[in-house]
């Protein structure tokens, strides 16, 4: 067929110790692709979950395996146990699934689409890989637009941010109070900040630690005792201290609500034991979620993603079928073009010879020109259609070869 080969290893069956050795940073990925292409085409897609080499050309698979072996440092026997090799439309379908996030650890995760695009842009592409990657990117976008696979969060911190959006809409302008200055607080702060929220205060027992974390977000570090006083000036509270008791009570929040003029307050308690009095949730316009609530939201969201995955698979299969047909048509298009060129050559040369003998007027010449062209078109129409139909099936190559043989058209590469 096209000589498209894919050799790769991924989180499905390859331990992280091997994946990290096979990981190729972007500049080297571009160099590797250029080297592997060797006059043909190659793309190296390398992420934390996979390293895949797409090659079009002679011995593409063998060269890709050699490259992967050199990257991973695994002996041939061990490498062949974890590596997957796919060709032509199977390789195409695989990339479509990857771009759609269907082969990811978390179905529908959005980062992979950007990684596929980056790999494509850094690759050495020609007609096959250009078409394949463009169509895969299109399929990835279509899956995200037409299904809800990527709409729900897949981690506790992103679930917290998504819940805050359910209350406030866009988080631009929303002010956040972090209670606690540990790693979890920082992760949540990043998730909120990437969605537009402003980290306003970091409250901690150690004001020095509070100031350190606050400095990273352009916020103000305050003492833990001052946290209740800051409630009136924020919209979201994220708490994750190691305190044995409640850091904020219902009375603290009730006091703050008086000056908020009905504006809601969203509170996330990531601490165990809990930092925030559960009774806060009973207050009007207050929404308190603890770690169990968030984990059940994530679990439900992942279940939703898996349900949507079935719809996404159908979209990917449809798009992959389009690529398969295009790939197959590449086998017969040169044969059709040669056949038509051959017929046209005969028609025009015979017409030129007859023109002198017949002594036709200009109008008559135009009529003869048109009639002969129509005859040729009508004669070639059925074999053209049959060839295209054969290409859509699996016999395109043999039909193309037969046409070349019967009409003496020479080799495709000639």
């Amino acid at each position, binding site marked *: 067929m096209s000589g498209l080969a894919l050799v790769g290893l991924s989180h499905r069956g390859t331990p992280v110790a091997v994946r990290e050795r096979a990981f190729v940073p972007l500049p080297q990925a571009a160099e590797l692709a250029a080297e592997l292409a060797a006059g043909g085409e190659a793309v190296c897609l390398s992420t934390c979950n996979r390293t895949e080499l797409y090659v079009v050309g002679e011995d593409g698979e063998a060269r890709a395996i050699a490259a992967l072996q050199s990257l991973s440092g695994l002996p041939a026997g061990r490498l062949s146990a974890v590596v997957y090799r796919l060709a032509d439309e199977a390789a195409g379908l695989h990339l479509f699934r990857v771009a759609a996030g269907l082969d990811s650890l978390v179905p529908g995760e959005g980062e992979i689409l950007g990684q596929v695009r980056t790999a494509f842009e850094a690759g050495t592409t020609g007609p096959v890989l250009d078409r394949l990657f463009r169509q895969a990117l299109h399929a990835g976008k279509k899956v995200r637009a*037409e*299904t*809800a696979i990527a*709409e*729900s*969060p897949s981690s506790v911190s992103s*679930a917290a941010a*998504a*819940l805050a*959006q*359910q*209350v*406030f*809409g866009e988080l631009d302008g929303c002010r956040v109070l972090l209670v606690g200055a540990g790693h979890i607080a920082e992760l949540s702060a990043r998730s909120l900040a990437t969605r537009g929220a402003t980290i306003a205060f970091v409250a901690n027992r150690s004001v020095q630690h509070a100031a350190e974390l606050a400095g990273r977000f352009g916020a103000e570090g305050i003492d833990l005792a001052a946290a209740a006083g800051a409630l009136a000036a924020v919209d979201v509270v994220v708490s994750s201290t190691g305190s044995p008791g409640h850091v904020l009570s219902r009375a603290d929040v009730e006091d703050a609500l008086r000056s908020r*003029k*009905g*504006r*809601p307050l969203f509170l996330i308690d990531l601490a165990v034991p809990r930092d925030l009095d559960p009774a806060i*949730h009973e207050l*009007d*316009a207050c*929404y308190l*979620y603890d770690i169990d*609530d968030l984990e*059940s*939201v994530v*679990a*439900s*969201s992942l279940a*939703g993603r898996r349900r949507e995955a079935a*719809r996404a698979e159908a979209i990917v299969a449809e798009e992959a079928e389009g690529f398969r047909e295009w790939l197959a048509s590449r086998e017969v298009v040169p044969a059709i073009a040669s056949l038509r060129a051959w017929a046209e050559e005969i028609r025009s040369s015979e017409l030129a010879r007859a023109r002198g003998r017949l002594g036709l007027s200009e109008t008559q010449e135009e009529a003869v020109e048109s009639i002969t062209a129509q005859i040729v078109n009508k004669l070639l129409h059925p074999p053209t259609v049959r060839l295209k139909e054969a290409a859509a099936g699996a016999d395109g190559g043999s039909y193309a070869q037969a046409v070349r043989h019967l009409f003496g058209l020479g080799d495709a590469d000639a």
Partner: protein
Amino acid sequence: MAEYLFGFAFLAYAAAAIAYAGDARRPGPAGRVATWGVRLGWVLHTGLLADQAARADGFPWTSWAGSLSLFVWLVVSVYLVWGCRSRYRLLGLAVLPVAAVLLAVARLGGGTGAGRRSGYSTGFLIVHVGLLSFAFAAFTLSAALSALYLWQERRLKSHRPAVLLGRTPSLLTLDALTGRTIAVALPALTAGIVAGFIRLGSDGGTVDALMAVTLGAWAVYGSYLVLHYEAGWHGRRAAYLALAGFALVAVARLGLQVSHFS
């Protein structure tokens, strides 16, 4: 002609309502079908009203059923301004079934015919009936927004694991949109009432039940605006108040099957 326009408009609204139900179960193509159903239904309904206006001698929507058809058209018109966005599709699930049913009721009551000539001037009827119908339509939308707010708030309060599944507007957006819709509708209601009272003053007459209920709705929505923008009434309390106002609108629009002009 009117029969066909009514029939197809009704079918388009009904199809949109069914498609909205499908979209609520599984977001996707059904949502787009619903959106186009609303648009098509609105165009056909507009054609129906234009046909009525062309055939009528004067303002054709003075009867209870006639003004109901105009009211449905206005509800869908206001909904179309922003309701077709994917985040508001749940609102369509509340609006379109009601629109389809009310259009059918208007048809059964003879509200899609040419109507009878009223003793009142066409200019007065356009101002009075038109403004009141527009205000009632906007209040209906604000009630749907408030209902959606309460539903969404309940989901967030109940800690349902599936709270993030499905596309819904945020609480703040719903609260703000309800306030703005009422802020636009109340001046229209006020102007319509003032026009009615000027006419009542010149012709002589008494305040009937329909007028009393409408004045009650005006008082509730006036209070809403003062409390919402001046006293910081937001969220659940404001949503309940908007629904209370709508209860009076529903009584005026549907409960009292009377019109002053037929």
